Each structure stands twice: as structure tokens, then as C-alpha cells.
């Protein structure tokens, strides 16, 4: 699914060079739920940005679903982000001027999907996250947990192969965090690969694997479970 080899990323200013990622290599299998942990400034978010094609990297190779994405044009990167990757942000990042329906609709619009198909996907996604009755609400009219669920609906409505979650429960209380984690686990059980950056060790232990980053390098990897195949998961959930 994701195969990074010797990825390096350096942020340069006039006076300082910061090596955010150093010889970073990671392989993530399809359907895997990987938690990325590390202290602030360890390189977690940079890894997520590189993995999500939000940022280019300086060295190494990166294959996403077998495709070399190292030297793609901006348009091509946008297309892959739109079609293959779903993003969940700590601050939810819903567009404040659009209602929940239109927020979920946004990535589908960029894909130029027909209106009927979009409507079907949006209603299905909002139903899945329990926000069917809130689709005409603005983000500001929802609680933090509801906003994050709306963001998850936006991430999954395009049927991405991988979801990248950056501290998805960072702004939520324990109860809300639990709901979001259950939702993510259920999505993962449906076969979607999830990479989740978190500070919370308890949440990290709910992933199949925890990758701990220190100074832009993988320091430790802990395995907590095995990947459930999508077909099996689908059967189980049914």
C-alpha cells in the first residue's frame, strides 16, 4: 500500500537546516491500521504530509499502491490525494461557510463526479457517521465530536484506499475520542488502510502497529494485532 525507502525531508531557512525526516523507511500493508507516535517535533506530521502528498520530499523513494509518486506534477498529486487518500485533521478543517452536506461534497466535486452519484455517497457517508439529520447545519452549529465525524464522512465519501489522520482526537474529550476511534476502527475493518498520528499511547495500542518516531527516524515499532482482510471484515460486520 505504502512503501517508503530512505525518505529524507529537510526544512531550510537562511540560518538553519532542520532534518524532519532522515532515511525514513516504512512499509504499510493494505488494510493495516498504523499509529504514528512521537514527541512534538519528532517528524510525525512531516511524515503524514509526505505520505499524503501534501509536501514533497528531498530524497528516497515513495510508492503508493505500486505507483512511484516521487516526481509527479502538482495536478497529478492533487488527483491522487482526491481519489486515493482521505484526510482527517486534528482541527477538523471543515469549511466554515459551507454546511455539512457541502463540506462532504467538496472532494467529490473536484473529482467531477455526477450529481446523483455524489448525493448517494454523501448521504451514505453522513449516515455512517450518524449525521444524517445534521447535513444542513454549519460546522459552527455542531459539537467538536460531530465536526470530526463530519470530517470523517468527507474523508470516506470518496472511497479512499488510505486515510491519514493527524491527531484526530486531539481536540476532543474522552467520550468523543472513544466514538471517533470506534468509527476509525470500523472504517479500517472495512478494508481501508489508516495511518494515524497520535500522542495518546492508549489510542496507539488500538492500531495493528505503532511506529514511534524520534528525530525524523523510526525508533521503535510495536505490533498489537494483525490485519483483518477486507472480505473477512465485511463478513464479520454483516
Amino acid at each position: 500500500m505504502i512503501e517508503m525507502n530512505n525518505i529524507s525531508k529537510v526544512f531550510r531557512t537562511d540560518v538553519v537546516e532542520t532534518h524532519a525526516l532522515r532515511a525514513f523507511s516504512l512499509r504499510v500493508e493494505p488494510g493495516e491500521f498504523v499509529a504514528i507516535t512521537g514527541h512534538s517535533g519528532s517528524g510525525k506530521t512531516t511524515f503524514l504530509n509526505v505520505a499524503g502528498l501534501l509536501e514533497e520530499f528531498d530524497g528516497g523513494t515513495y510508492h503508493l499502491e505500486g505507483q512511484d509518486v516521487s516526481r509527479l506534477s502538482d495536478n497529478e498529486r492533487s488527483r491522487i490525494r482526491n481519489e486515493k487518500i482521505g484526510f482527517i485533521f486534528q482541527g477538523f478543517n471543515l469549511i466554515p461557510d459551507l454546511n455539512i452536506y457541502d463540506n462532504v461534497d467538496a472532494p467529490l466535486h473536484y473529482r467531477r463526479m455526477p450529481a446523483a452519484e455524489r448525493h448517494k455517497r454523501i448521504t451514505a457517508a453522513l449516515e455512517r457517521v450518524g449525521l444524517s439529520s445534521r447535513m444542513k447545519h454549519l460546522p459552527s452549529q455542531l459539537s467538536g465530536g460531530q465536526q470530526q465525524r463530519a470530517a470523517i464522512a468527507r474523508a470516506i465519501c470518496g472511497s479512499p484506499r488510505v486515510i491519514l489522520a493527524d491527531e484526530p482526537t486531539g481536540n476532543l474529550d474522552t467520550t468523543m475520542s472513544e466514538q471517533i476511534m470506534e468509527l476509525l476502527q470500523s472504517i479500517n475493518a472495512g478494508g481501508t488502510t489508516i495511518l494515524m498520528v497520535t500522542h495518546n499511547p492508549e489510542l496507539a495500542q488500538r492500531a495493528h502497529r505503532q511506529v514511534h518516531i524520534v528525530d525524523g527516524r523510526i525508533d521503535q515499532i510495536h505490533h498489537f494485532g494483525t490485519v483483518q482482510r477486507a472480505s473477512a471484515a465485511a463478513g464479520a460486520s454483516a
Partner: protein
Amino acid sequence: MEIRALVSAMWRNRTGPILVAAQVAITLAVVVNMAYLIQQRLETAAKPTGIDINNIFWVHLEAIDPEYNYEAAVRADLDYLNALPGVIAAATSNGTPQAFYALGLPFAVSPEQLDKEGAHVARVFMANEHYLDALGLELIAGRNFESSVVAPPAQDVPSGIAAWAPEVIITKYMADKLFPDGNAVGKPLYVGLVNRSSTVVGVVKLLQGAPMPDEQFALSNVLVPMIPPGPDSFYIVRTEPGRRDATMARVEKELADRVPGRFLSRIEALEKTAAQARFTFRSSAIILSVIGVFVLAVTLVGITGLAAFNVTTRTRQLGTRRAIGARKFHILRYFIVENWIITSVGALVGCALALAAGIKLSTTYALPRLPLYFLVAGVVAIWILGLLAVVVPARRAASISPATATRTV
């Protein structure tokens, strides 16, 4: 692009867009009418006069001797001027065309019409038998005045007008207005104030009394055969091409001294008089142009300002849009369409304002109505202006990194 979502989002933050749309509307209304006024002024300045302006000069003499014999002096001066080499014709009159001061009277085809508001106001030029040649006017119907019909100078202007004249020559414009059947010659023309009538004996093709936007005021002129009252003399002299300045110099040197008791107060080429009369139009056109450009520049700044403000306040949102798959093109298009909607709403309101202002201007200042193609051109110009105004902020928006979505938490 989902226009509904865009409009809905704009409506939730409507203060800025409404202010800019209002600015666009006012700009359109002002600039369109201003452009039309400028065009009117430039057109007026360039309109044909029917006069051989480049070869004419006029001279004004003031009498200082109480015993000065004005009538004899006029006849002597006209004999002298008409005999000068290179002079085509010299005439006396009460003033020069192409200046704004004039004697105006109401005219009509019947006494009944004179009592109505429909009376046709025209300038009155006192003329002798040389007047048409002195201005180079083209007589297209009837005949010129005969010298025998030219009345001697009256005591003053009111008594001269009161006496009036048995015949007049009018312009074609006036003939068309008062005698729409096309045959003015031989018809009576009634003049208001003094309640007298004259027979129209001739029609000149064109005589622009003064460069004015309203054709009626500019082209309605009546020539009356009479020597203007004294004691000051006024002559119009037309020369052969290329001989005006030399003749002027000679007249300036010789004319006043030919008769004692007077002095030459002013001599001027009609070309200069006409240019000065047009200066107002040209200078006001320049001033209006400068104001128009300034108004457009302020609007450009307003549109750019709103777009730049939106980019700054939506940085994270734009990063998020990019992260979920928007291409740079989508962001550019978003801002351009958003701005187009604002300018279009402003343009729509501006069209209504412009039409209202145009109607008010046309009724207040007797100007023609604002043509619709000015509005169309104004809307297109506003769209182009809006597009230019938003290009830089939109490009900046499109350049926002998708990584901004994760950085600005």
C-alpha cells in the same frame, strides 16, 4: 463548481461582497455616464460649423469721440475692408459665431405657436449682404439679402429688434424643425417679444452658432438684415487661404486710424475664438477622464482588497481544499467566479443606477439619453477590471500549499 454552495458561502459573509458590489454599482453608474459626457463633449468639439473658420478674423473698434459718426464709419470701414487684397468678404454683425454670448429670441411659424412652449429659440445675428460670404456659409435655398434691405443702425439693440426686418435667412436645421414639409422659403416667421413677422428668403446649409451639445442651441440661427447699433463696430473678415494673418496685421495697423475718435480694442482669428470655445469641452473631458480613471482605480483596489482579505482569512481553508484534491486551477476559478458574481451583481445594480442618472442628466441638461451600448461596454469593462483585480490574490491563493491544512492547527 457548485455555484449554489459558493453563493451560499458568500451570503454568510455578505458584508464585504455587498460593499464591493455597491462600489462596483456606483462606479459603473458614474463611469458610464462620465464616458458618455466625455464622448458628447469631444463630439461637440469636433462637429462641423459650416464656417470657413481658418480664414476668418474679427475686429472690434470702440468709439471714444461723442461726435463719432458710427453709420458713416461702418460704411467706410466695410468699403475699405472689402477692397483689401486677399479679402473675400467683410461684414458687420452684432457678434461672432463660435462664442457663447449671443442674442436669443423665440420664433414660431404662427403667432399662436409663439404663445405656446413650443416656440423655437434661436440666436439672432445681424447681418448685411456680405455676411454669408464673410463666414463662407453655403446658401442652399432662396437668396441672400440685398443691400437695400439692410436696415441702418438703430439707436440701441432693443429698438433695432423692435423694428425688426422684413426678411430673414435661417439655417437648414431650423427650417427642418419649423417647416417640416421642406419648403421654408417664402414662409412667414414670427418672432417673439416684439410680435413681428418676416419672410424667410434664404436657407443656409449649416451655421453652428456655438459648439454646444444641444443641437437646437447650436444650429438654430437667424440672420437679420440690419447694421448693428453703435457706437462700437464689429467686423468679420474672410480672406483667401493663407492670407489671413497678413491681412490681420494690416487691418490692425490701418483700420482704426482711418476714422478719428476710436481705437481698435481687439482683433482675433476666428480659429482662436473657436478653439477657446472648445477649450471648456476639451478640458472638462480631460478632467472627467482623470476622475473616471481614479474611480476605476479605487474600485480596482476595493476588489483586490476584498479578494486579498479573503485569501488571508481563508488560508487554512484553502490548504484544506488543496489537501482534499483541489487543483490550483480550482482555487483560481473559485476566486475568479466569486469575484465575477460580486462584480456582476454590482454591474446589474449599476446599470439601473446608470440609466436613472442618465435620464436625470438628459432631462436636467437637455442631453441625449444614455445609449444602451455604453452600458454594455461599461459592464464588459467592469468584468475585465474585476478579473484583473482578482488575478494576483487568486494566484496567491492557488499557491497556498496543501500542507497548510496540517500546519495551522
